[in-house]
């Protein structure tokens, strides 16, 4: 079972991101479960959403405590909330930021993880460019596909098309595709 935890703030599409991720996995014929950390509707408050992916029925019903991957949609949460709690040393970290891990003050921290599994990605900027709104979830999913290989970009694209009406969907697809390419290239760079 692969567990993902997404952190962000209300209004950034954290919950839909987790949902689309589960749909992407479903489209690949796998089992997936996505759910938010629940609360009253409130923009701007820190929120979490979770996604589990497996090849058998998922029975577990607890928040993701030991994630295999973290997607951080809002870097302002970084030194406020314990975002990395429970992350395994083999875990993936994808942060929505124009800055790198060092500039974010995380270089010391990230030393205990595996470099090819860490990435920062200017997802909000990419979203603004293609969609015109600062909702980075689709872009981050494209990046996640690239960095983890847990789902394919094609599945992410299909999930986006299911979620959004046609015009908006294509813009999000473009954002996800660009992010995917960016992250894939960055990984190439690291390997090289």
């Amino acid at each position, binding site marked *: 079972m692969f567990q993902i935890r997404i952190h962000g703030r209300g209004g950034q599409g954290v919950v839909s991101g*987790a*949902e689309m991720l*589960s*749909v992407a*996995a*479903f*489209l690949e014929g796998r*089992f*997936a*479960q*996505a*759910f*938010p950390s*629940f*609360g*009253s509707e409130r923009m701007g408050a820190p929120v979490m959403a979770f996604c589990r992916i497996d090849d058998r029925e*998922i*029975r*577990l*019903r*607890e*928040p993701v*405590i030991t994630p295999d991957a973290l997607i951080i949609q809002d870097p302002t949460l970084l030194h406020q909330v314990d975002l990395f709690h429970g992350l395994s040393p083999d875990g993936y970290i994808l942060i929505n930021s124009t800055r790198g891990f060092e500039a974010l003050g995380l270089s010391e921290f990230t030393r205990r993880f595996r470099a090819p599994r860490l990435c920062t990605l200017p997802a909000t900027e990419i979203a603004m460019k293609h969609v015109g709104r600062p909702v980075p979830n689709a872009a981050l999913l494209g990046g996640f596909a690239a960095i983890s290989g847990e789902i394919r970009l094609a599945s992410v694209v299909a999930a986006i098309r299911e979620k959004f009406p046609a015009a908006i969907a294509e813009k999000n697809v473009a954002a996800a595709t660009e992010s995917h390419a960016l992250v894939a290239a960055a990984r190439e760079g690291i390997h090289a």
Partner: protein
Amino acid sequence: MLKQIEGSRAVAEAIALSRPQVICAYPITPQTHIVEGLGEMVKAGELTDCEFINVESEFAALSVAIGASAAGARAYTATSSQGLLFMAEAVYNAAGLGLPIVMTIGNRAIGAPINIWNDHSDSMSMRDAGWIQLFAETNQEALDLHIQAFRLAEELSCPVMVCMDGFILTHAYDRVDMPAQEQVDAFLPPFEPRQVLDTARPVSIGAMVGPEAFMEVRYLAHHKQLRALQLIPQLSAEFKQQFGRDSGGLIRTYRTEGAETIVVALGSVNGTVQEVVDEMRDAGTAIGSVGICSFRPFPLVALRDALQQAKRVVVLEKCFAVGLGGIVSDGVRNALSGIQLKGYTVVAGLGGRSITQASLRQLFEDAGADELEQMTFLDLNADMVSGELERETHGRRTGPTAEAILRRLGTVGSQVG
């Protein structure tokens, strides 16, 4: 057809397939997505021959359903927590009038203090009202149970509550297999009421019944639920035949053969329990679990059969009887009447507190070693509790507990004046 959708959406689609005729809705977290989904389907013309009515309170919601059902229409509504209490009078009324209304309860804690998260206290508050109460373990089961519920309700002339954990199930995206309309139509025939408001055959419904007949009427209500003990497994078997999967029934056992310790629970926590059972079985522990699906009628005989060979039973419940102990435990104890074994009550998950695999593992190991109290509150913050008790011994005026705890924690919001 396989779909990856939100639990609420799955339930809404299952309700729509069941050809409801009157749906009344009042919003309350966490069931609202269900009725919103249904409202959309009606408005868009996808769900036809159905009236969707926005009402002004939960009391009105169930009352509209009562009128519709008594007049011969298949009626549905949904609520949670405070809403269920607000319609309490109507809940008893619907059962007493034998109206086959189906209602979803998105299980949520009851205040004060106000809490929007999951536990079973709401359904439990109405456990003696005469409704059949079925608890879903998964979103698949939740959608399946609604289809079974309409059939069950109409065959018995008894309202049915389908209970599903708020947020944990209602707001989770899961893979579900949605039946086709033809399948549901084959399983669920049109509503044919036994007694109906009809100008061609006038009847008076709802008269006062005095001491000369009231006991008999109530006895027959009990008898009706006892008949449900037969009908529920029958419908589940028929459902399996037609839809190809296990859903519903009275209880579901998991690896109980040769189990020394058996855990009993209701609802979605059974999934986590089964994960822990597998883990512990792999490590050589003889442990199993039983999920209760039909809480009313309470499956005394089925439980007795499932539990009597064990050395100990751990009842894990998301509710409790204040001043007494466990609610589900009471029923289990009843089922095990005359049998000597160790019984433990564990109250967990109240107000939405997560029940984790790790906690359960520890809990079941303690139980196995018989190092558990008779009644435990799982993962209780002992410091917070002892601090508050300490404060209470020093002051004569105690006041509301929640606010007092907040003050101790120093939360700004509680510093008023």
